[in-house]
């Protein structure tokens, strides 16, 4: 009961002072306002970008290792001649070897990719045929919009069934209810058993396994219908190539073993492949890189924040020193009445903190407005975390405390008689 009114009165005095010199206070606080404002804004942009990257990488599956077949450069050159058949990429043998070798692996999903014409009635589209197993659908979560996904039995009985991506289904079948319809893909009929929403996102060099126009068919059925040899038109000539598997998606049991498994995998593939006809991609590495980038960003941010708060603090200190000089007589009066040095010190400290905290609060308003504008104008995701606001406010108060110390000390050291004599 004794302590609180004192602080309240100093705060009141600080606010009165601030209002009394409105323009001067505002100019003084500008440093704080823009310092805190830019920090809050930048944190929210960084946080938004980070969260977006994280979501996308999780879409790739942070426990996954993706190995893609790659046409070696020599093969590409040789492929120009008519009679040549290009032979490269991952093999069924690779699939088996990987499954048998690594203990930390939960599942290996083989993928065969072909471009085929899909037809329904009059409508034709070029679709990507994905020959895979039931486990494809367990790799990353994708919403099932209707029907069911592929299962073990489809494989066992070599069923002519297909799961379509939402976009493909909508474009191909338009208004029809797609489930149960027969769709012609690459000359064979398939029954549509399910629709899924594809998570097709490009992430720099990596891409989620999904595409917009995907048709998922059991791998053994794809092999049986279309074989392993593909003919492709390239630069006016027909290129023949034989690729067994286009992709192997390896899911590791626990995230801690992703990187060791990846290096073991690299070792094994190098042993069995003469040419560099594959590429290993690890989303986790991407995640690590994203985190490293974010750390760097945070360091830069911290430096900018530090500098602007330093500038803001110096501005506040400057104005408080002027304030002490102007109010020398007041200090003398208070001392004559019986105020202790510590009480004068406390008063000026609190007044400085009122100034810096007000600046911080205004800065937070600016810091909230900027990300809102960024999101409105660019559609970029921004996230203002409550922590960043609390920390900003705390730092504003701390700036007041630190930069208020010297002026407050000057005020407290004044000789009362000298101070009273001052006009």
């Amino acid at each position, binding site marked *: *009961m004794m302590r609180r*009114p004192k602080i309240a009165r100093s705060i009141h005095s600080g606010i009165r*002072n601030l209002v*009394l010199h409105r323009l001067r206070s505002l100019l003084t606080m500008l440093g704080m306002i823009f310092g805190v404002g830019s920090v809050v804004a930048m944190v929210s942009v960084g946080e938004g970008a980070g969260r977006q990257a994280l979501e996308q990488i999780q879409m790739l599956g942070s426990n996954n290792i993706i190995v893609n077949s790659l046409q070696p450069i020599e093969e590409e050159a040789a492929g120009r001649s008519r009679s040549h058949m290009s032979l490269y990429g991952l093999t069924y043998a690779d699939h088996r070897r990987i499954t048998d070798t690594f203990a930390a692996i939960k599942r290996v999903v083989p993928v065969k990719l072909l471009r085929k014409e899909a037809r329904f009635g009059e409508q034709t589209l070029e679709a990507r045929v994905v020959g895979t197993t039931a486990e494809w659908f367990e790799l990353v979560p994708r919403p099932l919009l209707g029907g069911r996904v592929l299962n073990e039995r489809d494989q066992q009985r070599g069923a002519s069934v297909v799961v379509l991506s939402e976009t493909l289904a909508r474009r191909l079948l338009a208004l029809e209810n797609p489930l149960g319809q027969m769709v012609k893909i690459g000359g064979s009929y398939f029954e549509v058993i399910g629709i899924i929403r594809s998570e097709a996102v490009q992430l720099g060099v990596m891409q989620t396994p999904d595409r917009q126009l995907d048709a998922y068919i059991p791998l053994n059925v794809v092999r049986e219908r279309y074989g392993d040899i593909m003919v492709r038109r390239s630069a006016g000539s027909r290129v023949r190539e034989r690729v067994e598997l286009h992709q192997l998606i390896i899911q590791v049991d626990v995230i801690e073993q992703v990187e060791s498994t990846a290096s073991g995998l690299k070792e094994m593939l190098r042993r069995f492949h003469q040419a560099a006809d594959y590429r290993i991609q690890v989303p986790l590495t991407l995640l690590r890189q994203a985190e490293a980038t974010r750390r760097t960003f945070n360091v830069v941010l911290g430096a900018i924040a530090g500098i602007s708060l330093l500038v803001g603090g110096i501005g506040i200190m400057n104005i408080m020193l002027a304030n002490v000089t102007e109010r020398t007589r007041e200090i003398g009066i208070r001392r004559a*009445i*019986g105020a*202790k040095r*510590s009480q004068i010190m406390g008063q000026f400290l609190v007044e400085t903190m009122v100034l810096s905290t007000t600046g911080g609060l205004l800065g937070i308003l600016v810091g909230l407005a900027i990300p809102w504008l960024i999101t409105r104008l660019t559609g970029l995701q921004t996230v203002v975390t409550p922590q960043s606001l609390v920390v900003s406010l705390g730092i504003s108060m701390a700036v007041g405390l630190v930069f208020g110390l010297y002026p407050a000390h000057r005020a407290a050291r004044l000789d009362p008689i000298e101070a009273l004599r001052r006009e």
Partner: protein
Amino acid sequence: MVEIIRLEKIWKTYQRGRRQVNALGGVSLPIAAGSFWAVMGPSGSGKSTLLNLLGCLDRATSGCYLLNGVDVLRFSDEELSDLRLRHFGFIFQSFNLIPQLTVRENIDLPLYYSGGDAATTSARVASLAEAVGLAQQLEQRPAELSGGQQQRAAIARALANQPEILLADEPTGNLDSATSRQIMELLQRLNQRGKTIVLVTHDPQIAAYAHRRLFIRDGQIERIEGET
């Protein structure tokens, strides 16, 4: 008769460049509780210096200062602040109210520093304002008051913590003679109710209100007039 203050061979020396200035040169003075003193003397004779020393606003270079029998010369800055807060009330020639505070806030400053709670403080301020005739002006700023009103507000402030001693340095110096008379009558009433008062003045008419007149010259007591 109770001695509230006793000065013994008080020296106050200022360093002015190389030269030493003795503002007070061995002043010895007993002040009885409830007495009313006027300090007179030419400009620069050491009147204000004496008053500041009495009020523990300044420290003597040497000598002995007993306040209620306690030697306060070795007191720390903090202890001296506390003595000022509880035992002394200052009244100045230029009123020295804090301009950005209201009259109420000026008057309750000593209560604020002594840590009074809100209810007692506002009751005390009301009765002080009543006593000095400023009950209607509490929410105004000092600049809106006349000189006499300002000085009465200053007196109310000086009385807030019920100190035993009032110290006034030319309290009527900035006032016309009619207003001066009102202020002096107020001080006289306070003295009659037991306050010890020491006031510095150049004006013999003002000094006439006091019981005892102390004349100083060059930092030394020249003579003392009035009944004992």
